[in-house]
C-alpha cells in the first residue's frame, strides 16, 4: 500500500473530507478551467455522493422510509451517512449501523419500534444475498432413532436471521413494505421475527412465544433436548412440535448431526 508517502495522499484526504462536510473550504488544488471558480463544480461531487448514499439507504430501508416519510428520511439519512459512510464499495452491505443510529437519534424517539424495523430490513437484505444452501430436509430428522433425537445438534442455515423486538416490529415492517395501513397493529405487543430464504424467496415470519429463544439456543449449538429445556423454563406453554415444523418449513438449519453417530444430512 502506498501509505508510506502521506504528502502524495494529502490532496485526496482534503477532497474526501470536503465531500462530506459542506462547511469545509474547497480542497487544495481544486480549480475550475481557465481561472473559473470551482465552488458549484465541486458541489456536483458533494451532491453525487450525498444523493447516491441517501438513495442506497432508501433502497435498503424502504419500510423505515415509509414510516417517517421520504423528506424526513432523506434528512435523517444525511446525518447518518456523515457519521457512518459505507465501509466498502458493496452498497447492498451498507447500513449495518443504521438501526443503532435510529436508537439514539432523538427526533425519532417517539417511534421506538423504528430501529427494530430497520434491523428486520437489514436482515432481509443479508438473507437475500447470502449463500445458496439447501435447507435441512424433514427426512434427515426422520432417519435418526427416536432415542437419539434429544442429542441432535443443528447447523444454522446461512440465510437465517432472528430479530427479537419489544415492539410489534414484524407487523409494522410487513404492513409498511406491503403498503397496508398500520391502524390495526398494537405497537407495544412484543414480536420476534424470523427471516429465512429456503430457496430464492426471502420469507419473514412472526414467531410464537419461545420459538426465538429455542432457535437461538439451537443456533449456538445446544442439543434439541437442551434447547427445549431452556425454552420451557421461560415459556411453559412452548409448543415444541410446532416450533420444529416451523424451523423445517422456514429453513432455519441446513444440516443436523447426532453427537454419537455424527449423522449428517446428505443432499
Amino acid at each position, binding site marked *: 500500500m*502506498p501509505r508510506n508517502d502521506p504528502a502524495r495522499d494529502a490532496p485526496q*484526504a482534503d477532497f474526501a473530507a470536503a465531500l462530506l462536510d459542506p462547511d469545509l473550504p474547497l480542497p487544495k488544488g481544486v480549480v475550475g*478551467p481557465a481561472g473559473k471558480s470551482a465552488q458549484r463544480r465541486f458541489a456536483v461531487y458533494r451532491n453525487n455522493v450525498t444523493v447516491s448514499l441517501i438513495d442506497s439507504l432508501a433502497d435498503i430501508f424502504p419500510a423505515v422510509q415509509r414510516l417517517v416519510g421520504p423528506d424526513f428520511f432523506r434528512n435523517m439519512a444525511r446525518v447518518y451517512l456523515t457519521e457512518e459512510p459505507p465501509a466498502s464499495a458493496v452498497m447492498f452491505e451498507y447500513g449495518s449501523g443504521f438501526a443503532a443510529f435510529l436508537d439514539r437519534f432523538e427526533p425519532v424517539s417517539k417511534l421506538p419500534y423504528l430501529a427494530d424495523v430497520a434491523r428486520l430490513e437489514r436482515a432481509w437484505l443479508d438473507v437475500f444475498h447470502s449463500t445458496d444452501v439447501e435447507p435441512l430436509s424433514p427426512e434427515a430428522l426422520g432417519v435418526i432413532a427416536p432415542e437419539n433425537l434429544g442429542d441432535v445438534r443443528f447447523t444454522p442455515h446461512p440465510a437465517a436471521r432472528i430479530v427479537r423486538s419489544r415492539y410489534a416490529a414484524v407487523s409494522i415492517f410487513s404492513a409498511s413494505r406491503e403498503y397496508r395501513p398500520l391502524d390495526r397493529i398494537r405497537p407495544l405487543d412484543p414480536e420476534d421475527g424470523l427471516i429465512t430464504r429456503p430457496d430464492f424467496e426471502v420469507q419473514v415470519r412472526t414467531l410464537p412465544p419461545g420459538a426465538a429463544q429455542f432457535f437461538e439456543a439451537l443456533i449456538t449449538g445446544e442439543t434439541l433436548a437442551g434447547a427445549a429445556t431452556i425454552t420451557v423454563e421461560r415459556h411453559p406453554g412452548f409448543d415444541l412440535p410446532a416450533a420444529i415444523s416451523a424451523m423445517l418449513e422456514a429453513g432455519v438449519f441446513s*444440516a443436523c448431526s447426532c453427537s454419537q453417530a455424527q449423522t*449428517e444430512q446428505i443432499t
Partner: protein
Amino acid sequence: MTQSASISSSGPRFPRAPLPPRAGAGLKSAHIDQILADSYRIGFLEIHAENYMGDGGPAHRALTAIRSEFPVSVHGVGLSIGSGSGINPAHLERLARVVERYEPAMVSEHLAWSSHDAGYFNDLLPVPYNSATLERVVSHLGRIQDRLKRPILLENPSTYVAFEQTTMSETDFIREIARKSGCGLLLDINNVFVSAVNHGFKPLQYLREFPLELVEEIHLAGHAADTDDEGDLLLIDAHDRPVADAVWKLYETVISQTGALPTLVEWDNDVPDWPVLRREAQLADAILDRLGPASLLGSRHAAE
C-alpha cells in the same frame, strides 16, 4: 458437513462468449425477464461487479440465466484505481470471484477514485494528471491485472473540476497508462462530451488525440444540464435519459474510424422500461451496421 449441502462455489461453467461488435445494455434486474423473452437478441449485457459480490441468492440466479444466453462484461465501479490509499485487497478478491464465477468477455474499471480512509463515496472522483498519479495508477493496474490474470479496460472519466497539480493532458495521461500497464481502453463518448463542455475543449480534438487503436469497448449514456458559478453550462454525467444527439454524432465519427466495436448503452438512474433502453441499443446497432464496415480501421479489425 455444511459444505456438502452448498452449491459448488465454482458454480456452473459457461461457453466462451466474446463481446460482439454490437450494442449491449447495462443489466438492470427489472429487465431480466423481458431480455430473456425478447425476440431482439441484444449483443451483450454489462453488469456492475459490485452488485454481484454477494454469495448467492436471486441476483446470481438471474445473472446465471443471462450469462447462459448472452455474452457478459463486468464493469467495476468500486476498485478506486486512482486512490492514494491503495487498492483494497478484499475488494480485489471479491472482484476476482465475480470474474471467476461468470467468465466475462471483458472486465473494465474507471480512471477515478471512490474510497479513502473515511470510507466509500459511491461516486467516481477525479485525479490530477501528473507523473505521481500516473505511477500510482499503473502500479494499481498491474496488481489488478496480475490478480485477475487478464488485461482490463480503463475508462476515461467525466469531470467537473480541474487540478493545479495537473501537468499532462488527459489523453496523454491515458495513453501513457495503457502503454505502461498493458491495459486496454474503454472510451466513454458521453464522458468525452461532458468533460469537453465542462472544461471548454473540443470533443473532436480530444478524440483525435485519444489512442483509438487501443479502444476495445465504447460507452454511451445520457447527461443532465446544470450551470457553473459563472452561469455557464455544466453537464452532469447522470445516466438518467437517452443519449444526446451530440454524443450520437461523436459516436458516428469514432465508429467511422475504428470500425464496429462493442458499444454499451448505460442507463442507471430513472431506469426506463426495457423497450426504451432497447431502442437506444438499436440506434447504436444501426450506426454500427451503417458505418462499421466502411471504417478506416475496419478492415484491420476484420482481419484479426
